[in-house]
């Protein structure tokens, strides 16, 4: 199988690849969002602590 044949997906590339692409985006977002939120939590908590001191 050549690379072109693989990416053509027997003529169904327009259906198969968007399905995989969207899945990747949604799954990545579900990891990135909480990691960013956690970083944010520590930044905010430190700021608050600074005001108290």
């Amino acid at each position, binding site marked *: 199988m050549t690379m072109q044949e693989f990416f053509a997906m027997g003529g*169904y590339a327009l259906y198969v690849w968007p399905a995989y692409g969207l899945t990747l985006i949604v799954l990545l977002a579900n990891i990135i969002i909480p990691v960013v939120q*956690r970083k944010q939590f520590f930044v905010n908590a430190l700021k608050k602590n600074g005001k108290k001191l």
Partner: protein
Amino acid sequence: MFLVPDSVGRFFHRMASPPHFYAFTERLMPWLVVIFLLLTAAGLYGGLYLAPADYQQGDSYRIIYIHVPSAWMSLFIYVVMAIAGAIGLVWRIKLAEIVAISSAPIGASFTFIALFTGSLWGKPMWGTWWVWDARLTSELILLFLYLGVIGLYGAIDDKRVASKAVAILALVGMVNIPIIHYSVEWWNTLHQGPTVTKMDKPSIHVSMLIPLLLMALSFNVYYLIAVIQRMRVELLQRERNSQWVKTMVLENKQ
């Protein structure tokens, strides 16, 4: 409880303590990510490259390797959410409440993926993006149940009260789970019947079945990773006034 070995009991007891959970999951995470990447690589290689095209559906069927595992996860996560919610409701275990609410966005995501990839598969095979048949409609209701859980939790300020409300909603919504599973048998639908979870031999060739099961495993590990990430944030926010979180903030640990 006499059936549970002592060490296992101790493990769960310690896990229910927020600082232990936080520290333990930090050490666990790299291992989970490695296992997830290996399973996904093997599953995708088997499914997209090694497995032959379907004799009826050509290469379009390859959507199955994300569609079916996502649909399974959408049901599995809902059950986990409802059970964790019930445990939180009865025994007031904080970590169980956090498992329940942290599962909701991930379950909603898998439900959305199942619907979306199903639509992309339905268009070339059925000639339509969407039909209001039993399987598709009950899965859409599942998405609304997840969104309802997320919305209800966000609407109540006291998070312990919010967890109670969410647990009850999740438990009531359990009614939908068998409906989704049996919808293709109870009603005449456009959606095909089960090919893997049948009592007799699955009607899918082993070269297609193995990558499918690998992807299902991979999505399970993914859920574990994603739910732990969400739980850690939820835990920090709920426990922001407790000593262990304050110490971590001051030591600038993340």
